[in-house]
């Protein structure tokens, strides 16, 4: 069997994509891995089985992250879809879209330190509601930017056709617009879920260390030098995005086909 440079480059790309996942799972399944050993002295499922013990902090972090991400994704997708429709057909469309861009591009951690004063005043520091609101401030503009391209002349004409045939705006929305936009709604939901799921800086500042999401746990385990639990938390952090990105790809490709 001969290897051409093209084969080698493809294998290198595949290796670059797979290696981090394999190594993270490997570290999460190991114990006693001192320098200069290339492989851990012991492989064990103990770290993973600890997840099922009552009150495990990683499991709690997983559910906390999941609740926050689901709330943020649902609220951002619904409100972004609704708002983007009005913005897309608004006479100040361009200016309103620029306004939507601004909070989305600022570093979340810098945004969070600037907003912390108001969150303290509103008693929203150190609780889940505060984090949901803070993440919504980033996910909502993203959702608007995501959807604004969807509202084109074709969609407008569909809606007008329903109106001409006697259907109300509500009927057009529920029977025409929503079915047409279902794949986009799903993709936006996934993306907003990922924005929330990946978030660390803003969560650490508004959460004040009291709301322990998985990203916060990774950092905590690192500062405790608990390499194996940090790797385990990392694995839990990448499993849902892998599933969502796979679904995302399936949905996008099905739409194209």
């Amino acid at each position: 069997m001969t290897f051409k440079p093209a084969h080698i480059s493809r294998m290198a790309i595949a290796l670059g994509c797979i290696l981090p996942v394999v190594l993270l799972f490997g570290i999460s399944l190991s114990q006693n891995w001192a320098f200069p050993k290339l492989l851990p002295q012991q492989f064990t499922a103990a770290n993973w089985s600890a997840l099922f013990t009552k009150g495990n902090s990683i499991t709690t972090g997983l559910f906390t992250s999941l609740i926050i991400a689901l709330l943020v994704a649902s609220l951002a997708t619904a409100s972004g879809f609704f708002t983007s429709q009005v913005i897309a057909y608004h006479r100040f469309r361009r200016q309103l879209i620029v306004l939507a861009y601004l909070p989305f591009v600022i570093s979340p951690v810098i945004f969070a330190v600037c907003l912390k004063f108001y969150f303290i005043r509103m008693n929203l520091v150190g609780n889940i509601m505060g984090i949901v609101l803070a993440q919504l401030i980033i996910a909502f503009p993203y959702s608007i930017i995501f959807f604004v391209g969807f509202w084109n002349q074709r969609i407008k004409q569909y809606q007008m056709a329903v109106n001409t045939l006697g259907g109300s705006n509500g009927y057009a929305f529920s029977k025409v617009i929503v079915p047409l936009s279902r794949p986009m709604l799903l993709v936006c939901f996934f993306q907003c879920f990922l924005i929330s799921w990946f978030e660390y800086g803003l969560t650490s500042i508004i959460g004040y260390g009291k709301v322990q999401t998985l990203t916060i746990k990774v950092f905590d385990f690192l500062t405790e030098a608990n390499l194996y639990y940090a790797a385990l938390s990392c694995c839990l952090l990448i499993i849902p995005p892998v599933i969502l990105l796979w679904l995302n790809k399936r949905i996008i490709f099905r739409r194209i086909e």
Partner: protein
Amino acid sequence: MFSKTANRLAIFLLFALAVLPLLAGIGYALLYSLGVTGALKTGFTFEHWKKLFTENNVLASFLYSAAIAAVSLLVSVSVSLWIALTNHQRFRKGALSYLIYLPLAFPGIVAAFFFFQFLSKSGILSRLFFQLHITHSIDGFPDLTNDRYGIGMIVTHCFLSIPFFVLLFVNFINTERITAYLQLSATLGAGSRKSAFRVAIPMLLRKSLPNIILYFIFMFGAYEIPVLLGRSNPETVSVMAVRKLQKFNLLDIPQGYAIAILYTVVVFSLIVLMLKSRKIAYDL
């Protein structure tokens, strides 16, 4: 087309959830940095801003962040262009079309953790070098994390951004019919290298310029990666702002807010540049 109430509600949502927090945050930071508000208010003063510009480390921090972002982008865009142009058909079907999505599933903090384990002195690469007798002790391995040149940060940024740019370029190759242009230039006598550099790459770069600027902004303001893989001197803008605002020295807080304002001005200028680079399309 919409009822007045729906219109008003949508605009209210945009202002309440996007514009108001931004203005309130920037306003508070500006007033704090000018000594007008906050626990340390002294009355209107430019003292904290003057300090900001006289201390070299603030300017160094901005330049360092920009340099890390620029080098990361240069490497990732170049590598992505090469991968997309040589393998674009492989990303439509087959294993690579799925595997390329894997790095996109990595949050910044997970990628930073992985590369810390991979590139640090006691990391996997160092162990491999030791086992292969290339190095003879832990100190024999070079500093690739928390290092002066930000190698760990650059590698991590590249790992996260290359798949994004590959997918973007592959998409443009298909939608902009780049292969047809390449065939045309080949018919007119251009070699494959000349066709790539004179036709495909300029077209792809022009089309993706807003995305490149946007990615620069994200890398410039990144926090998780520099906080794990960076060092305290020089430090990136986000790390410096958070350190000044969150740590123990209260006298640093006004300066921290001034840095946040300066950062915001830089980002907004880049956004204006990005919007100018694409007249109509705002979609990411």
